[in-house]
């Protein structure tokens, strides 16, 4: 019996951002994400008191998925970040930190939300149009004829995830692997639109990272007994493949809503088994060499097939079905009736392989865009982190293929952008003031809040107490080690900027990032050769960062606009 219960009244709080508790929780969250940011970011160990494994991470996706936030405002913030990450994989921490910074800075100046939102949006528009424009000084177009930039991009992503626990050499190895994997998924003969293939990450925990490798085709894991049985079958050359998506276990299909009465002595199981064996006979007579089934194959059928030297592999799982049908060129068979020959496919070759302590059945395709990335790492948590990182890198490469440009990493884009915005609003405030109907002071305050949010975002890359400088020509990001002598010749102390594009011998002048310096126009237009020559740049994904910037500002605006929070207590 259903029970009716009176609903409890909701809790309604006004001006949530002014409450001390919200501020405190926001700053805790900001502390967590800020300390994770960048290559030297600190790791977080997440362990659930109620069970589950311990997770060591510095990635936004793992971090935000495991944190349980209770306050609705934080919920908005974290879900916005998670949604961004699930779309773009990269720049989650960037978005979260920028959003927190913006909220904090804007709150401090205490203007009305309307003005703040209008101006924030305007500044965001300025940023976007600059980043997309031809003259942008922090965007490098990607030339796909060389792998240099793509490799730098992948390497930057791997470097920024310290929880993968990779050495320099390992990073080089894995980034090369990732790039190869990506290239293998690109079809060779391109038509009007490219359909990318699929890469499957195969786990191999407890091995050295250097043992990771990428193979074309599909690896199917199997037990040692199966493996041993397969060895004598080995014959070279191509295989005829049948792929079943229907179960071959002999269970009865759905008989409808009515009743089915079976007379005494009639065995439906036998009938179905007969049917299965008939199918087996047909497969054998059609000279099929390999039968794979998504679900279970009946042991009798398996026995029958192996007697006729047909390899039978069952329990493939739904995830592998699509790549398998792509690799073999089959159509998955969904009925136990007679099989039409058009549904068979073939593979070029097959072999058995042993990696570490695992045995694999390796299908080598004729020509297909499916490949397997065999990923090794020492411990479980490090492997998990590495896997997510690899997926991120592959996704970023795909995004870069769509929008062929990258942004300078290592904080340089942020400082450059801040310098540009400062200069723009200082020198041409008329257009903004006219459009948005606000005063010069308001514009200055908001610009300061916006730019310092960007700059302190760049500054949070430095975790070891070093100083952060910016040069007054390009507006790039430079960091100095802590406890360096106070007044020195900067050009001797610094070597390269955050992204690695500029070196300190270029007759630059520097100032501290957080000091109030006179707005200057950062040099736009990257010199062409700079992009090509440098081989050790730190780069960021353009699409992901652009979206992160937009989402961060929009979310901050959203949170600043809240006047009430109504919490349903039921």
């Amino acid at each position, binding site marked *: 019996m259903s029970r*009716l219960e009176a*609903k409890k*009244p*909701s809790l*309604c709080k*006004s001006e949530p951002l002014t409450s001390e508790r919200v501020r405190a929780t926001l700053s805790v969250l900001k502390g967590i994400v800020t300390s994770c940011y960048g290559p030297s970011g600190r790791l977080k160990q997440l362990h659930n008191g109620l069970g589950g494994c311990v997770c060591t991470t510095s990635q936004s996706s793992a971090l935000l998925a495991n944190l349980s936030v209770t306050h*609705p405002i934080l*919920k*908005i913030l974290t*879900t*916005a970040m998670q*949604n961004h990450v*699930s*779309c*773009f994989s990269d720049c989650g921490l960037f978005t979260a930190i920028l959003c927190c910074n913006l909220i904090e800075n804007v709150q401090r100046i205490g203007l009305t939300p*309307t003005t703040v*939102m*209008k101006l924030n*949006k305007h500044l965001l528009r300025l940023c976007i149009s600059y980043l997309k424009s031809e003259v942008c000084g922090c965007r490098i177009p990607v030339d796909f004829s060389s792998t240099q930039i793509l490799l730098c991009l992948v390497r930057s992503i791997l470097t920024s995830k310290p929880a993968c626990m990779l050495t320099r050499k390992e990073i080089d190895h894995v980034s090369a692997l990732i790039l190869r994997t990506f290239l293998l998924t690109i079809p060779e003969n391109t038509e009007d639109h490219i359909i990318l293939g699929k890469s499957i990450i195969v786990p191999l925990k407890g091995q050295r990272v250097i043992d990771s490798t990428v193979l074309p085709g599909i690896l199917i894991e199997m037990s040692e007994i199966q493996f041993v049985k397969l060895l004598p079958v080995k014959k070279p050359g191509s295989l005829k493949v049948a792929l079943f*998506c*229907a179960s071959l276990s002999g269970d009865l299909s759905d*008989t*409808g*809503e*009515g*009743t*089915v*009465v*079976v*007379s005494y002595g*009639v*065995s*439906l199981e036998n*009938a179905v088994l007969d*049917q299965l064996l008939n199918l087996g006979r047909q497969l054998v007579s059609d000279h099929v060499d390999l039968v794979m089934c998504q679900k279970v194959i009946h042991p009798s059928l398996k026995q029958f097939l192996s007697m006729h030297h047909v390899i039978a592999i069952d329990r493939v799982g739904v995830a592998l079905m699509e790549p398998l049908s792509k690799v073999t060129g089959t*159509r*998955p*068979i*969904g*009925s136990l*009736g007679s099989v*039409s020959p058009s*549904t068979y496919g073939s593979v070029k070759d097959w072999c058995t392989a042993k990696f570490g302590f695992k045995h694999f059945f390796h299908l080598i395709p004729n020509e297909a865009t499916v490949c397997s990335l065999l990923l090794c790492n020492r411990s479980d948590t490090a492997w998990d982190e590495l896997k997510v990182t690899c997926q991120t890198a592959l996704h970023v490469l795909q995004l870069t293929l769509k929008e062929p440009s990258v942004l300078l990493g290592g904080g340089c884009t942020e400082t450059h952008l801040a310098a540009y915005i400062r200069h723009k609003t200082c020198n041409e405030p008329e257009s903004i003031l006219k459009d948005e109907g606000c005063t010069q002071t308001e514009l200055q305050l908001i610009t300061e809040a916006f730019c310092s949010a960007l700059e302190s975002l760049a500054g949070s890359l430095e975790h070891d107490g070093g100083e952060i400088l910016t040069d007054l020509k390009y507006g790039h990001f430079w960091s100095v080690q802590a406890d360096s002598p106070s007044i020195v010749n900067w050009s001797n102390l610094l070597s390269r900027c955050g992204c690695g594009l500029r070196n300190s011998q270029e007759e630059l002048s520097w100032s501290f990032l957080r000091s109030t310096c006179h707005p200057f126009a950062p040099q736009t237009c990257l010199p062409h050769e700079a992009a090509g020559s440098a081989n050790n740049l730190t780069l960021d994904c353009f699409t992901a960062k652009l*979206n992160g910037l*937009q*989402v961060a500002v*929009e*979310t901050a*605006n*959203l949170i600043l*606009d*809240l*006047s*009430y*929070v*109504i*919490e*349903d*207590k*039921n």
Partner: protein
Amino acid sequence: MAAAASVKAALQVAEALESIVSCCVGPDGRQVLCTKPTGEVLLSRDGGRLLQALHLEHPIARMMVACVSNHLRKAGDGAKTFIIFLSHLLRGLHAIPDQENGSLVSENSQTLGRHWKNCCRWKFISQALLTFQTQILDYVMDEYLSRHFLSIFSSSTKERTLCRNSLELLLEAYFCGRVGRNNHNLISQLMCDYLFKCVAREGGFEEVFELVGDCFVELNVGVTGLPVSDSRIVAGLVLHRDFSGYCPADGDIRIALVTETIQPIFSTSGSEFILNSEAQFRASQFWIMERTKAIMKHLQSQNVKLLLSSVKQPDSVIFYARLNDISVVECLSSEEVSLIQRVIDLSPCVLPQASSRCEISNTAVVKFCKPLVLRSKRYVHLGLISKCSFAPHCLVLCGPVQGLVEQHKDALHGAFKMLRQLFKHLDLNYLTQASDQNYTSSPLIYKNSRESNQLPEIVNGSLQRPYQGTVVKNKDKLAKPQTYLKVYSNLVVPSIELEKHFPCSTPKVTPMDTYQTNETLRCLSPNKTGIIDYGEPFPESNSANSTTENTRIKISYENLQVTKIAGKGSMLPVRYKSREMCSSRSYCFSSIPAGSVLPVGGNFEILLHFYLLNYAKICQQSEEATVGVIVANALLGIPKILHKSKKGNYSFPQMYVRALHALQSGQPMGSRQTGLESVVGKYQLLTSVLQCLTKILTIDLVINIKRQPQEICDQDSEEEL
């Protein structure tokens, strides 16, 4: 436990609610974050949603919320204004009682307790409110406000073509109050584009509004993780699911719709299938398979490339479909099916049960059919070729969080509801007689108006109407006599207490009308001297009325006078007379024309305020006047809030004074606001609030019952039986 319900308590409740909703009103309103018990967070500026999210306990508050949701179901907009207006009304009522005590409470009730006395008084007021709402409001709307209305249709053509510019203004003003401040431009632009893309042929707006309003859930897709600016419109229909089996196809693509599984099953519910041998089982399985195959073959021969199914199909059906290059989409909701049926007029195929041959004739052509990937989720994208005036398009709504996407969805849905209301005529009707009673004018005004001819402003329009008709019919423009006539007719109603004169007013009107008709006829010949003659007896009769209590005699005397004049006037056809009498007694039907709009930013409220005050000034019955004034003042609450943050020249007092000045001098009200809003929506809101208020006022006790509601008592009674 019972608690006395009072205006004071209601006011407290309304004020509490007001403080919450007033922060989200208008273009400067802010957002409210609501959490659901499931942990989801929702952003909202929608008053109705906020009120419901509060889960209020107070009985009066719950009643108000119920009234608001009733109103929203009808109009789709105005929940916040509802609360603000209501609390202003209650405040107004709360402030009056002391002066009005004597006049409104009848003598009998003095013996009762104080509370009951109060209740009695409130009941009177609530009756007055009801009268106001049903009679005066319509009258004022029709007579005075209607001349300020603008139309959303472009005026150049006779046909109703929607003016894009005004629609943009209307939508922008609507979304200003509904979505976040940074997004309203974008969303209103999106909606405007969407509307114009969806309307396949000229004049099919109503149909499109109806269809989109009904099926809005199916016509949009929410995508999280992207900035709002990535929202867009896609041509065709996007189904919220993926293909079960997809085979790329182009060219002439036909689709078929089924509502049952294609593969026959062993036994349907209620039947029994007896298996006697294994061979029989095999044979029946074989038959089932062959039949599925045959149907798919047949579909392929019909060039069907896509099979839409409202149920889950067995795996083998999908397998055979794939073999025949047919894509399959399963598990369509009934709403999606009905939308597809409405748009392309496709009825589901009926699969014959027994015969092995099947005929499928119900297929339709689509332009394309392909998967659409939005944020790594796959959807089915169909290029339907519409058979009605709705050209199918879908909205892809993006936002960083689900809560924001939901807010935009709700706002868009509400906008369609609002437009649907806007495109309907709204009937106004009011009793002409009743307005006669309500209308009282002093002899002083009468005299003034005789010279200056300014009276149309305060003249009862319901009476004006038939005469205008007559005049036009006779192709004679006789404005002046008409005016006198009206003044004259109105003066007949004595300016004494309503209750006492109510029974007498009917006979009074009749002779008056004969006179009027008479005069109209006479005026056809341009003889102006006659008019003055007719006017003469009246000051006499009027003064008599006001001084003496014995009205009956006076009225008969007056009747005598009037009829005498009528007789003197000349040959009045009897037929004519009776018709006019009828019209003067009957209801007056009028309407707010479809598509009427007013500039946004409190224009409607200030206009109505002005005319109501004017009305109250000339209205001598204190009850009517009081109610009119209270409503008029409460109306000002809304523009006050809207202009709260404005400074200097645009602050509320400045704006108000300017508007009043403009109205008095008959100039157009200069408005800085560029948006438009629907008049019908405002009118409906006003009536809803007044109804709610009468409801509140008529309640005297709130009885708190602490027992499980429903069912339990039903069960008891059953057991007893």
